[in-house]
Structure formats: C-alpha cells, structure tokens
C-alpha cells in the first residue's frame, strides 16, 4: 500500500455509521417480519370474530375482551400460570444452586460432568415427556414400583389422574428439564467471584452464611437479574411439556395461559378469542418485564453498556 491510499485506510478502520446498521439490518428485518407484523395482526384479530384461520371475520370491538374478563376459565388459567411460574422458580433455583455448588468442587470427572449436566435441556421436550410418562406410569412405571417396594405408598399413584398431583408432576418435570441449564450459568458466574474475597472473609472470621450473603449473592446479582427476567418470561410461556403430558387436564387443572390460548384457538376454533387472550398475556408480560427492569436491575458497577 502506498502513502496515497492513507485516507482510505483511516476510512476502513473507523467504519461509517451506516455500516453498523447494515450489519444488523437483516436480522432486524427478519424479526420484524416474523414477530412485529404477527403481533400487530394478533391485535387486529382480537377485535374481530374469526373462528377458523383463513375465514373472514367482522369487527366486534371489545367483545372478545369483555367476554374474556368475565370468563372464569381465563382467571383460573391466569392464577395457574402464576403458580406455575412461582413453583418452577422455587424448585429450579434450589436445584440449580445446589448443582452449581456441587459442580464447583474439585472431583475426578468434574470437567465432563460440567458439560453433560445439561443433557436434559438439549433433548427434545417430547423425549422428556416420553421418559417421564414411562417412569411415572401407574402400570409398570419404575417410580411407582420403587414407592410401593419401599413401602412409601400402599399402591401405585396415578400421578396425572388428580388435578393437584398432575400440576405438581408437570412442574417437577419441567424443572427437571431446566435446572441443569440454570446451574451451568450459575456455575460460570460463581467461578468469576475472586477466591481472595472468601479467603479474606475467612480470615475475618465470617460464617458460611455471612459469606453467602455478603460475597456470593452480590457477586451473582447481574446473572440472577438476567435469569430472573428471561427465566420468568420463558417459564411463563412453556407450552409443549404441559400439552404433551396432560393436554391441560384433568378437568383443566394444568391449563395455564399458553395452554388456554392453544386450546381456544386450535381445539375450540375460536381464533379471535385466543388472540384476545394472547394480547392480554403479552401486555401483562411486557408490564412485568418493564417493572422488573426498573426495580431489579443491578447497578452497573463497571459502566459496561451491554448489560441488560
């Protein structure tokens, strides 16, 4: 390169502003076409009376929304969704913390264990469902065999036959699928906390609880924030595990909002009604996300701007 091309060089290093947009544009267009446009259509649909996809509908104003807010099914599903999110959060947090703390120790095979722990997360949900239906089957399932053989119950339990036990089973199975994923992320965050902090605290005579509260928790704050936000939204939206295990039953005992939306739209063929539930759900989640970001966001300690 000769000296004559010097301006060109500088140009290539400090890229023009539009170049950044150009690189991001394809993805943004894609997401706009597959998320933004459908969302807008969802809102339109919710003000009509379309029953089956592709059939024309009339404008009915807020009729779907009034019906929704008066429907017991909706409020029950809403309540169940809250229990679902809470139950999953508690169970997964406990299991994930325990797992991360275990995997943080040194032991033979630790490296392999840290990778393969997320096995249950990478297999298809359908496989998870097949596994647990077989394990928990009332006739021939090994869990029931073990429970009876150990004398814990007198006869096999129908895990999916009563409402409460079906809901509890579905929460447990979903947690089984997700806790290793959260454990892996927690573990990575734990490893970033400098060991010197713990050593110094030990010298000062801090107890294990004090160390946990004053070193571990603050050190995990930003990861816990991301997991709290995205984990909650994702958990709220879980559909396939529930649908494939119980289809929302018995007698709607496991019908959370996503299941209700699917059932209303694709089983009862009341598409506009389903869209209205979707819109209400979406608005609720958006409000949750905004409130969560406003009040739970960790202070940006190092001014790193990509922190969410």
């Amino acid at each position: 390169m000769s000296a004559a091309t010097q301006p060109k060089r500088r140009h290539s290093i400090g890229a023009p502003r539009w170049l950044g947009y150009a690189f991001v544009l394809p993805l943004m267009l894609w997401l706009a076409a597959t998320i933004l446009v459908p969302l807008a259509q969802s809102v339109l649909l919710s003000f009509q009376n379309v029953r089956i996809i592709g059939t024309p509908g009339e404008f009915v104003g807020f009729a779907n929304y009034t019906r929704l807010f008066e429907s017991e099914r909706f409020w029950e599903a809403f309540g169940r969704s809250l229990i679902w999110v809470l139950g999953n959060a508690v169970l997964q947090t406990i299991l994930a913390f325990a797992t991360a703390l275990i995997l943080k120790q040194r032991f033979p095979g630790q490296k392999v264990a840290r990778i393969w722990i997320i096995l249950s997360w990478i297999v298809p949900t359908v496989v998870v469902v097949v596994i647990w239906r077989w394990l928990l089957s009332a006739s021939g399932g090994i869990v029931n065999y073990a429970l009876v053989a150990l004398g814990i119950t007198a006869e096999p339990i129908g895990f999916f036959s009563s409402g409460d036990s079906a809901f509890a089973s579905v929460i447990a199975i979903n947690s089984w699928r997700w806790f290793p994923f959260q454990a892996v992320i927690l573990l990575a965050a734990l490893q970033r906390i400098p060991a010197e902090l713990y050593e110094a605290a030990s010298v000062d005579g801090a107890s294990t609880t004090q160390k946990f509260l004053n070193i571990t928790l603050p050190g995990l704050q930003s990861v816990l924030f991301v997991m709290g936000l995205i984990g909650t939204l994702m958990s709220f939206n879980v559909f396939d595990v529930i649908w494939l295990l119980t289809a929302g039953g018995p007698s709607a005992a496991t019908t959370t909002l996503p299941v209700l939306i699917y059932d209303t739209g694709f089983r009862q063929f009341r598409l506009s009604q389903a869209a209205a539930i979707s819109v209400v759900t979406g608005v609720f989640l958006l409000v949750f996300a905004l409130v969560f970001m406003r009040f739970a966001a960790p202070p940006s300690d190092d001014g790193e701007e990509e922190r969410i």
Partner: protein
Amino acid sequence: MSLVMRRTLLGVAIALLMFLVIAPFYWIFTSSIKLPPEIIASTPTLFPRSFTTQHYDNLLGGSPFLSYMGNSLLVALGTMIITVILSTLAAYGLYRLRFPGRRLLFRVILITYAFPGVLLLIPLYGLLSDIKLIDTLWALIVVDITLAAPFATWMLQAFFRTIPMELEEAAALDGATRLGVIVRILLPLAAPGVASIAIFAFITSWTEYMFASVLIISDANRTLPVGLAGIIGQYQIDWGLLMAGATMTTLPVLLLFALVGRSFVEGLTAGAVK
C-alpha cells in the same frame, strides 16, 4: 466438618445429581432393547434380561420414522445455516462497530427472544399461509430461525469481545476489505462461538414441537417431535416402540454435543456472565 466427612458428602451429592440426570436416559434406552413382556413386567429389571431389536425394526420399517427424521434434519440444517449468517452479521455490527442506538437494538433483540411462542402461533399461521408456505418445511425453518437467532446473537458477544480490535485494524491496514477481515480473521478466531451458535440453532429446531404441530398438516412433512408425539397419542401405548423412538430422537443431538459440547457450554455461559 472433617475432611473425610466432607469428601463423603460431596461424593453422595455428586452421585445423586448424576442419578437424577442420567438414570432416566439409561432407563429408556434399556427398555427399548427389552422384549415386551419384560418391559411391562411387574418387577422391573435393572439390567435387561432379554435382548431384541424388534422395537427398532418396527420403528424404522413399520412407521414413517425415517421420513420424520429426514424432515427434522433438513429443517434443522436450514435453520442452522441461516441463523449463523444472520446472527454473525448482527453480532459483528453490534459488538465490533460503534453507532448510535446500538444499545437499544441489543435490548430489542433480547426482548424478542423472551416473547411467547403461542402468541405468535396464530398470526404466523395466517402470514405463512398468505405466502403459501403452510405445510412446507420452509415454514418451520422460518419460525425456528426466529426462535434461535436472538439468543445466538447474544451468545456471540463473548466470543467477539475477546478478539483484540488491533488484529482487525492491522488486517485493514494491509488492505483487506471488511468482509475479508470478517471471513479470514474474525470468524476463524471466533470459531468456537460460531460452532456453539450453530449447535444452539440445530437443537432449537430439532426439539421444536408447537409450531411443527400446527404449521405442518400432511404426514409426509412431519418432523420427529410431532411424529413421536403421535405415537404417544395412540389408544394403546406401545412402550417398546416409544422408547426406541425416544432413543433414536436423542441420538443425533448426543452425537453433535459429544463433538462440540464444550464450546457450546462455554458459549452459553460466556454470554450470561459477561
């Protein structure tokens, strides 16, 4: 607590954890090679006493399982290729270039990732049927990219950040074009990151059930999760067949993971703790 006690406790904890994660998989695999009477025997056998490949024969010969698998493979590969392109481009723009609104775009991308799938199911069906993609594998590729790309972009952040800007500048000084810099310098250095988003996209697509159950109508275009769910739905459950199906569905993901599991987990965690 004495050291011995600590060690023992840790050993027990590790064993319990491994049992919780691995045992269910062991159980479906061993069930899939047992003869039917042994599968439903009232006293389960921890180690198979009988051995048969009949469930696999039935699965491969007597059901459209192979066709489901072929469809799943096509959709997963299509999703993988396009996601890698879209996400790598976006990640380069977001993490290597400076422009106003970068932070906002970054947040928007992540928020879309958290959007409920069921919410999109209804309008996407309409949209895809308008452009005549319903009941084609392309419909699933389109949707799966949307599910995978935002998180994939996020995962690349950590990999792109570790590459010194000076390398890029040096290459530019040597007269390389920006695309040349990306392809010849950045991508090879970020290869573990690109590999991990590729697997992420593949797995996302391979495991997707909800959209596949609605957007695909004919049996010939069905993917594995929906096909397998069809076997569960039958009146009399053939457990042997189902276990064989579950094992075969898990296998490709296991193979991929065995190859690049390490960088996948690194990618997964690097984005989160950065």
